[in-house]
């Protein structure tokens, strides 16, 4: 009962937590470029400002799909946090990204359509890895249930080190960080799928991204098992690592992203899981 209440509260406050994570990220990014950077509350100021803009939509399906992305993201987080199957949560996240993609395909702006195609490439790259990671958790813990993973006595990180490394390298694909940010590509296709959203509808997409931060970093947290301090340390390390990678590297072609995922990350993590299955 206590676990469910805590998780429900976490889900309710997920946009706020994600907003703070994004604010910290902007400050960290600024400090890495020897700038002062915006205040910590900056994402919320942006949020309130976007509330005050005139609503302007291309057509209703496009706007609905933007809001759908936000709702489906939040719902996938709810499914994840309420102690259900991890696999189901992963598939709900697919629905969220698909909503964004359908919305982006439904307008005639070429940048939006190109962004949607690239977003599908992102999905092809990271979704198999997510599923493999969940399978790895099943190998270690013996259950897809979140509660069993959080009560597991051992450390999943020690049994799945390669899967963890592969997942850390896949996080830039999920959060659109620099080596693999072809879908967003701010200098090239100004924001990709989100280009045609404006005002309150852009706000939904913007907030959906904050929820994705919570979603992704919670999976990192799971690698600590029942050792919550280890999970927190891992989250901190991965956050700083992803930001350093974001600032230190240039954008790669989408072919290189898909090749890197399918020829390096997926086989290597599959080997980890096969080895684990044989060894047990």
């Amino acid at each position: 009962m206590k676990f469910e209440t805590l998780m429900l509260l976490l889900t309710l406050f997920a946009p706020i937590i994600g907003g703070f994570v994004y604010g910290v990220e902007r400050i960290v990014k600024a400090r890495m470029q020897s700038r002062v950077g915006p205040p910590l509350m900056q994402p919320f100021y942006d949020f309130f400002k976007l509330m005050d803009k005139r609503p302007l939509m291309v057509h209703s399906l496009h706007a609905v799909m933007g809001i759908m992305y936000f709702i489906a993201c939040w719902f996938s987080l709810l499914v994840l946090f309420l102690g259900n199957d991890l696999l189901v949560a992963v598939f709900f996240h697919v629905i969220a990204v698909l909503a964004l993609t359908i919305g982006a395909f439904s307008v005639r702006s070429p940048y939006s359509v190109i962004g949607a195609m690239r977003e599908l490439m992102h999905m092809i790259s990271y979704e198999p890895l997510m599923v493999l990671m969940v399978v790895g958790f099943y190998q270690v813990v013996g259950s897809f249930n979140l509660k069993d993973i959080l009560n597991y006595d051992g450390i999943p990180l020690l049994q799945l080190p390669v899967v963890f490394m592969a997942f850390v390298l896949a996080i830039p694909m999920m959060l659109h960080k620099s080596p693999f940010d072809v879908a967003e590509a701010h200098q090239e296709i100004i924001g990709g799928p989100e280009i045609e959203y404006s005002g309150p509808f852009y706000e939904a997409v913007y907030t959906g991204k904050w929820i994705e931060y919570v979603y992704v970093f919670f999976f990192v947290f799971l690698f600590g098992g029942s050792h919550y301090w280890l999970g927190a340390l891992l989250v901190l390390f991965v956050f700083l690592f992803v930001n350093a990678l974001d600032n230190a590297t240039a954008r790669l072609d989408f072919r290189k992203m898909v090749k890197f995922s399918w020829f390096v990350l997926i086989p290597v993590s599959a080997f980890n899981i096969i080895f684990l299955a044989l060894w047990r």
Partner: protein
Amino acid sequence: MGIFTKFRKKSPWILHYNTGGCNGCDIEILAALAPKYDIERFGMLNRGNPKQSDILLVTGPVTKRCRDVLRRLYLEMPEPKVVVAMGACAYGGGIFRDFYHVENGVDNIIPVDVWIPGCAPRVEAVIDGMVEAVKIWEKKSKEKEYMRNHSEELLEQLGARNDD
């Protein structure tokens, strides 16, 4: 004037458009984004997207090729919005005044709220102009604005072009 109006000044997002100037102003804008002046500490971001921007920062005399693009960018921005014209060219054409390819300044195409003087203006002048623009922006309402004189002019010009 809603409850969110007072948060406006915390995050003005800029759309920068060069209408055929010499790039001197644009380099000053880049300097404003760089570590020394860092206008992101006021929450300003240079979005390349009219639909998510609040301040339209125009540089250059408006060449005839840029005229329709500039008008379209202005119309695509959702209200409340502010237009800032930067540099001597934007005010009446500067050294390009009365050339065959120039519309003699931004004011002939879209309504301008703030002028930034100089050729090219220093970054301090840019930040000062942005502060002025934010002050004007806080007083604007989010109701739809219609372009009065400018849209009639547009129709006349389109008609003239069809006759050619």
